């Protein structure tokens, strides 16, 4: 039976076949599977943070601040709501796009293009972390703390620093991860084994960081 034939049996039969397979259930490289397992566990951590946020926000009797006002910036003499967060969102999506292209070029073993696209992705990530540092500085100077918030419910401060801090840590680690892999791609390390799976695996991690931001943006900044 060829792989094509295996794919044409229907999804239910695939599940039965894969789980009753003596050798292995998942027909993907193990490194990719391990990254998926890690991302699923990370999903639970971020979910716990966001559910905790929902819980304190629902139970707080002090008023919740207007996030769009808290994160407004004065540009060209005008106060534009939430603009910094919007720019950060666009930057992260752009970086996801360059990463997707890097993964595509990995299939063609195009070392120069892979390395350049991954470095561009890392630079976008770096600028994201930079803006987050700016945002933290601004809020701290206005008196927002993990235990205090001049604009309303104190829980806003706790959730803000915890959730964006944990996400920012993921972005920072991603920047380091991307840079290392880009360097090794450029040096030709993966040509020796003729195996470029690592680019797709790094891509999974990076897209996940973008995915988490989609939820943080919707629930924390827009809600």
């Amino acid at each position, binding site marked *: *039976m060829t792989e094509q034939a295996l794919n044409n049996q229907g999804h239910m039969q695939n599940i039965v076949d894969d789980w009753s397979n003596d050798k292995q259930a998942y027909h993907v490289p193990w490194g990719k599977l391990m990254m998926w397992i890690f991302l*699923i566990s990370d*999903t639970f951590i971020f979910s716990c943070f966001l559910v905790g946020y929902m819980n304190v*926000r629902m139970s707080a009797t002090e008023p919740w*601040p*207007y996030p769009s006002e808290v994160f407004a910036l004065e540009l060209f003499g005008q106060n534009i709501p939430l603009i910094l967060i919007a720019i950060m969102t666009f930057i992260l999506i752009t970086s996801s796009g360059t990463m997707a292209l890097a993964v595509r070029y990995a299939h063609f073993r195009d070392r120069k293009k892979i390395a350049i696209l991954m470095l561009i992705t890392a630079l976008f990530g770096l600028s994201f972390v930079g803006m987050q540092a700016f945002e933290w500085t601004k809020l701290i100077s206005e008196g927002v703390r993990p235990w205090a918030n001049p604009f309303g419910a104190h829980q806003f401060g706790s959730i803000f620093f915890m959730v964006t801090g944990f996400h920012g840590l993921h972005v920072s680690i991603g920047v380091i991860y991307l840079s290392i892999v880009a360097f090794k791609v450029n040096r030709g390390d993966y040509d020796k084994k003729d195996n470029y799976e690592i680019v797709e695996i790094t891509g999974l991690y990076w897209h996940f960081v973008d995915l988490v931001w989609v939820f943080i*943006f919707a629930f924390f900044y827009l809600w």
Partner: protein
Amino acid sequence: MSESIVENNVSGEADHADDQQHPIGVYLKVWILLFVLSGFSYMVDFLDFQGMVRWTLILIFMFLKAGFIIAIFMHVMWERMTLITTILGPPTVILVLIGLMASEGEYVKGTRIDYLGQPANAERIHVSDVHLEEEAEH
């Protein structure tokens, strides 16, 4: 089970053959789509929609964006159903946690109002008012 599939999965090499079928256009289109959807999300705030309209729009744009990132950028669309169910199945139990914690949050708020005499509907504070107050103090 054929030889080829066993070999493929030991080395993981043969996956490239079918991955090459994704034309670059798919990624570019999804990329643009994510930009547009993010723009829409931002407009929800910028145009100051409130109430049910706001929550509905935020959630629709959020789920569309998340769906496209998972399906296309993370290649889930092209994986076998066994892996897809492993990835998407376990996180659905989070819905139970959401339900429990929402009910608990309501309860805690109720006890704070009933037993601690805290306000049920405190007025939200505008950032500009806080800044004006601070200036007045100095």
